[in-house]
């Protein structure tokens, strides 16, 4: 009986000690601590442009992407990307009367890649060699034929992609927005015949308009503010192991680019462009009906035909 009292008293004491440790925060707060913060930096206004754009449709979507799929996609794109590179760098160099060596300074190589291929810069795996060592690229260009150059690089990069692919399990849920917008100056230009009057209605025919499509996955999908306390993040890590949880900038950027591409494809497949045109016509009609007090109906060429 006495023994059982001792056991109960010991257990109660242990609980009290643990509670005291937890409340005092010895092992969580003061002894070991971790602090992550965003350092204060300036926001710089680079430019202000006057535009006339009408965003007519937005597609909010979610995609699940894995690094494995992103590498597969990159592998499929390699020949296309190299075709572009060849067209931009190799062909002009070989046809240049002043000689390829003058044209291909390391600076110009770097400049062309960053300016012309801003979107490809994110495929650092692919262009790592170029941005890091343009001199080597210059040497390869001068010493190899075009076909050899392309083939050597392609084979090497396929190897890199394969080795990265097998060791990566990182996956993300990405949520973002694809928007379709029209430049109103283009809309004005594409009015084929205005003021076709039929009784009380004016019909205005438009040429077939193609919207500009922009996809971006921001850090915030639904921005958290005073009204929305629970924001929704743009990216959410689903599957990570110890190694991949650490930052690996190139891999993550590859995955982000792939996620945006997937989201845009999803929106287009679901009919973004058609919806954007319909929405534009409806907005223009509403605006003109209100401003003129008359019935104005917009028709695009497809509908009119």
């Amino acid at each position: 009986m006495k023994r059982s009292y001792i056991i109960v008293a010991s257990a109660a004491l242990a609980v009290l000690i643990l509670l005291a440790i937890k409340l005092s925060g010895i092992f969580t707060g003061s002894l070991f601590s971790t602090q992550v913060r965003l350092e204060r930096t300036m926001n710089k206004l680079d430019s202000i442009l006057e535009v006339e754009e009408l965003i007519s449709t937005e597609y909010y979507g979610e995609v699940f992407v894995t690094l494995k799929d992103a590498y597969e996609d990159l592998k499929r794109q390699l020949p296309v990307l190299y075709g572009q590179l060849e067209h931009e760098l190799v062909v002009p160099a070989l046809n240049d009367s002043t000689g390829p060596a003058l044209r291909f300074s390391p600076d110009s190589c770097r400049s062309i890649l960053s300016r012309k291929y801003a979107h490809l810069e994110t495929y650092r795996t692919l262009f790592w060699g170029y941005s890091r060592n343009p001199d080597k690229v210059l040497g390869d260009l001068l010493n190899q034929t075009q076909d050899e150059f392309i083939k050597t690089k392609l084979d090497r990069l396929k190897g890199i992609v394969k080795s990265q692919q097998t060791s990566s399990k990182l996956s993300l849920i990405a949520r973002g927005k694809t928007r379709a917008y029209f430049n109103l100056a283009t809309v004005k230009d594409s009015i084929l015949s205005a003021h076709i009057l039929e009784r009380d209605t004016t019909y205005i025919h438009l040429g077939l308009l193609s919207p500009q499509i922009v996809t971006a996955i921001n850090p915030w999908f639904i921005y958290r503010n005073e009204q929305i306390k629970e924001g929704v993040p743009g990216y959410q890590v689903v599957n990570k192991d110890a190694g991949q949880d650490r930052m690996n900038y190139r891999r993550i950027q590859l995955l982000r680019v792939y996620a945006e591409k997937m989201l845009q494809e999803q929106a287009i497949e679901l009919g973004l462009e058609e919806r954007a045109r319909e929405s534009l016509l409806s907005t223009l009609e509403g605006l003109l009906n209100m401003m003129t007090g008359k019935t104005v109906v917009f028709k695009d060429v497809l509908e009119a035909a």
Partner: protein
Amino acid sequence: MLKKTFAILLILMLGAAACSKKPDGAQWVSGFRNVAKLATLEIQVHKIVNIEKQKRFLGITTGTASQVVSSRATVKIGIDLNELKPGDLEIKKDMIKLTLPPVKVVDLIYPPSQFELLESKSGFLASLTLAEIEKGYQDAETDIRMWLNNLGLQQTAEKRNIQFFTNFLRTLGYEREIYIDFAPADNPHMPLISYWREK
């Protein structure tokens, strides 16, 4: 008796667990939304994002990890034409009065896929995780959104819209005097900030 008590306790514990579950994030709908956002001003913002992580033992820093990236945001400012109401246009004998919805941020593009890595380092037992980096980027976006209100762009954006609609009305053949006004912002202290609203 003991079984009964145990069952009651179990039910209470399960109930407590269910109640303490945090609610899901804001509800959102995937799919298309027809909008009519007229952007008349586009600004480019540049920001260096510096995320730092410090590991400490007894108040002494034992390791520091950081990531520095160069980021760009494209912000489009304008009005939401869907907020225009029939009563907003008043046509009189020698004048037209148009009340436009308040100017605001109609689109903000700040994709981490376009960020450029400037520096990245890990310290002793300190390295940034992807979740921490994401949080840092979210804070950077919040910072840009808050900063937009202090730029004094509201007046510039209003002038641009006045210019646009004056030209538009003249094109429609109105020769009369045109007066354009703006409806007050939802929140006068943060006039440009964009909010998500379910419609």
